[in-house]
């Protein structure tokens, strides 16, 4: 049962990921990304990382993909060139894909992990333990993340302000 779900979810995620890569239209790509994330979230659930699945959907689907869609629409690139996979680009792409597949194959053959069945519950399954971790061991990174978000915000503001300020022009 679990196996079947895994298979379905993984095939779904891979297909959607390929959709992101191959879709001609950026909006379609964004939608594929959304679905792919959903698939991954499903896998998270299967791994008992319920909280993380939730966060993934919340942050990625809710914020990131939405932002993407928003920007795509804002920039309104429908009239722009559509993507064509041809010529040298395609050849290089195929070579790249081949190389990547070889790498995967290498990983599959040589990188065999002898892991047993899942051991216990990971913290991802419990909000409480998760929070403990964040507020004890990883308190410093959390604080840093705060600063990161602050500068990201400032950055977005700086980068999106339209007109130069008059007092700086002097």
């Amino acid at each position, binding site marked *: 049962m679990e196996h079947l779900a895994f298979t379905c979810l993984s095939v779904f995620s891979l297909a959607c990921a390929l959709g992101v890569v191959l879709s001609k239209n950026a909006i379609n790509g964004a939608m594929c990304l959304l679905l792919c994330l959903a698939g*991954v979230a499903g896998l998270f659930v299967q791994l008992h*990382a319920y909280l993380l699945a939730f966060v993934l959907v919340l942050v990625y689907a809710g914020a990131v993909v939405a932002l993407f869609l928003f920007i795509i629409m804002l920039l309104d690139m429908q009239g722009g060139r559509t993507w064509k996979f041809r010529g040298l680009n395609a050849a290089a792409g195929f070579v790249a894909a081949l190389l990547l597949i070889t790498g995967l194959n290498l990983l599959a053959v040589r990188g065999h992990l002898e892991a047993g069945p899942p051991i216990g519950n990971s913290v991802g399954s419990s909000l409480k333990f998760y929070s403990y971790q964040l507020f004890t061991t990883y308190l410093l990174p959390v604080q840093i993340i705060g600063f990161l978000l602050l500068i990201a915000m400032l950055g977005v503001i700086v980068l999106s302000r339209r007109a130069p300020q008059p007092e700086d022009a002097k």
Partner: protein
Amino acid sequence: MTPSLDSYVMLSAALFAIGFLGVLIRRNTLVIYMCLELMLVAATLALVAFSRFNGTEDGDVFVFFILTVAAAEVAVGLAIIVALFRARQTVQVDQLDSLKH
């Protein structure tokens, strides 16, 4: 029977590779950026799987940071892309080559 750790890792690696491929072959900055996000998500998948199978907890916590960082990165990245679109009226990377040689 549960799927093995290997299959999770392989799936994650495959997603990562697909993301990489997207970055390689796409020309639209936004799509490239989506592919990059895909790569990050692929990494989180492996991380969660490892945490689960190995019974270690740091991985799950790490995912939180990855997602947050990714969100911040996306915000900044999109701001740059928007600003660039305003200046150059394009987001196609093959037209963005005024800096070269």
